[in-house]
């Protein structure tokens, strides 16, 4: 069970960072729970990994300086840590989006061509 989970996490580590950055860039600052539910809403199927792994991605991005976490009061008057994208994060988002698009195009092409 644990292996299945970690396998899935490994696969999506880089892309999860990208997704989080994109989400924060378009939706503005969010706390972790809000981010998780929004991502679930957007995805057609239930989100393919457990919500705990979000925290791993968040701490990674925060340590890299691409997002910044600030403690604020939420709508329901709870203390929550809101994560927002930084300037460096936007630049990284651009770069990594481009990289991902190129990779996706390449893989698509390979899959189309009769080899």
């Amino acid at each position, binding site marked *: 069970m*644990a292996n299945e989970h970690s396998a899935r996490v490994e696969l999506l580590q880089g892309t999860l960072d990208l997704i989080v950055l994109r989400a924060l860039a378009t939706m503005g600052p969010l706390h*972790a729970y809000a981010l998780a539910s929004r991502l679930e809403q957007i995805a057609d199927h239930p989100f393919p990994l457990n919500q*705990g792994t979000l925290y*791993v991605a968040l701490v990674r991005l925060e*340590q*890299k300086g691409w997002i910044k976490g600030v403690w604020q009061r939420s709508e329901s008057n*709870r203390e929550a840590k809101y994560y927002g994208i930084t300037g460096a994060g936007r630049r990284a988002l651009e770069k990594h989006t481009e990289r991902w698009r190129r990779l996706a195009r390449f893989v698509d092409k390979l899959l189309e061509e009769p080899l």
Partner: protein
Amino acid sequence: MSALRRLVLRLAHFVLPGLGERQLDRELRMHLSMLEEEYQRRGMTLEEAALAATRALGGLHRTKELHREARSVVWLDDLRRDLRYAVRTLTRTPGFTALAVLTLTLGIGSVTVIYSVIHDVLLDPLPYPGSQRFVNVQVVNTEDGRRRNVLPAAEFLDFQEQSTVFDAVIGTRGESGVLAIGESRELVRVVLVTPNFFEVMGLPPMFGRTPAPTDAQPDAPPVAVVRHRAWVTHFAADPSVVGTVMLLDGTPRTIVGVMPPRFTWHAADVWIPAPIDRAAADANTAPRNFQARLAPGAGMDEAEAQLNVIARRRAQESPAEYPPNFRVEVVNVIEQVVGDFRGVLYTALGAVGLLLLIACCNVANMLLARATVREREMTIRAALGAGQGRIFRQVLVESLLLALAGAAGGCLLAYVGIGALVPLLPQGPLPGEVEFGLDRAALLFSLGLAVAAALLFGIAPALYSARRDLVQGLKTDGKGLTGTSGRLRHALVVAGIALSLVLVLGAGLLMRSFLSLVRVDLGFDPRPVLVRQITFPPEAYASPAERHRLYADALERVASQPGVAGVAASMGFPPFGSGYTSQLDIAGMPPDPQRTTLVQFCTGSYFETLGLRFLQGDRFDDSSADRMPRQAVVSQTLATSYFGARDPIGQHITVTVQTAGAGQPDRSAFEIVGVVQDVRNRGPYEAVVPHVYLPGPALVGSSTILVRAAADPAAVAGTLRSALREAHPHVIVREPGTIQEVLDRNVYAQPRFSLIVIAVFAVAATLLVGVGVFSVMAYAVSRQTREIAVRLALGASGAQVMRGVIGAGGRLLVMGIGIGLVGSLATSRLLARQLWSTSTYDPPTVIAAVVLITLTALLACYVPARRATHIDPMAALRQE
């Protein structure tokens, strides 16, 4: 950039672990409560919602763990935890920890001492930059092996200019000079150097400056640079001596600089710049040593090849300069200077390595014993989820901690040890530049050694603790005498006994060898005979006859001193070579070039001063040197070798007489008037060769005076200098001491050093082995308390119990001695080069070593054995 930021933050989280944990807690709590609310809104009950929330999060614990791994550096975290646990465990058993650390201190510290000396003497003795690449160049006659290490100017410059392998070349030449300070005259060693010398050696002077190129020009005022030790001895360490003028060999020279203490190239007291000039050189210009530094990347083979090509070309142009078969050799300077000492030091390193191994065996044994006691604790930890790797790492960290503590103590021990060892080192083979101390290389070595030792003794206990058998581990009460643990510990004790036997045997052999060395019969007693080398300065006499008178006068004055039982003058003194070899012709027998003898000039009083016995005839008259027939005394060996049964007295012999300043040597005839007993004349250990003594006006330059003290040589020594000064106030006196002292310094010092070092290690090893045997036996007895109690209750006597315990120890002892003897066969061969007249299988020494180890082991068994007999059966049985 972002990666770097991440790394820094991860380290920050490692250093301050609580930082991220608290925040994550708050976040997760909020996340969970919001999830619960959501699920409740969807219609779940409170409990269902809570469960679903946790599942959606993916497990609280797991999330926290993943987060921690991402935000901090996990293995450092674990290491910190292991360290804290190890410290706690070790401080809980202070006795155990202290013993282990002391054992390791002894082992690691001793090795560090020897390594430090090896580093300071063999690996990096010279302070000059690039000193590893310094070489000497010699021309070797391949037929007879004779070497010429000085090159005349033309050859020197050809080698220098036509070779490409050197990045610096210096020409040096060492001579004796007379330094005049006030009324006293001192003999100093003067070294001529090419003007680039100080720049090449690369060390700045302590005071003043080094000679500039202008100082070396022929019409420049003469300058000199003084060695630190000479500055202290002759100039009272006065810095203002720089710029003053000193009188060297009658020439006034300005002292321009004083070099730092470690600058002692060529063992000089004074360096004088003197360029090599091809044009100005003639037959009288003294040749120089060719010393050079290899360019980086150039090898000695390449240098030799180049120089040989140049030399062969010169040999073709002027064949008279070279022997018919010759080779140019390039030798590394450090190798040449300290190479002989290598054997001694590496033997010491081997011995101390054995000591460290024994220490590691002991500590491994202790750790294994403790591991079996902690088996229950380890099993519980494993059952609670600690991985095998985790436990293994944790035990290894304990070992590392012990080793590091041992290294710290070892460095302290090394500091003291180096201070104690250095005075014992033989001074002769060591260059003046050597400086001893606990430097960075030694400290780093000590650290590395600690890590290696930790792995060595820590692996077995770590493997033992980490292996799986949970059920067995909980069931057992840690007997640990059977199975792998017990066998391994017995093997360690056996190994320790074997290794210590090798060491003790080595020490014993060295002792036998040393005793044989010092007990060699020299033919005379060296203790009461003082030697002095006296030189009269050239201005003291105008002719050889006057010089002869001066010496005679000096001898008379010395003879009249109180406490003097005899005085003589000679070319040298036994047992060292004191003469030259000449062909011996006997009147009435055909000449035979193989018939050679050692020729020595001395005064007639020589024989009684040394206490030599005449077998036939008597000494010669000193006055017979000037009248015919000249008299001679021969040695016993010469008489028996060349005259056989015939009586040599009255026979006539002819030898070559070399008198310096008299031009060519010529052959002279002598009449034998006495046969004197043999003394060693080619060194203390070489066979005696035939020897003829001639009366000598031919005392040349400086002479050796031998003084026999009636009682205490020290009392006589004090009065000699003033007595000699009465003969001439400017006489120069060199004082090696008594012949015994000379032997001690030059001949006995090195074997004595080896002996002391290895003996110390052997004693330490024996003690360690005693401790090891004791601890194993004590542990065994404590673990077998119940069995012993049962036996006592069933009627066994105390003696029987004791025999049982000692028997167990005895079995290990026998095995250890057996293995040790076999091991000694191998190591003795390595030691053989340092032994003299002692077989490596010398039976008394072997027996003594075995007895020593046996007694130690039996003594170590005795205490636990006695304790076993005092076990109260009732109390012991009740305890379980």
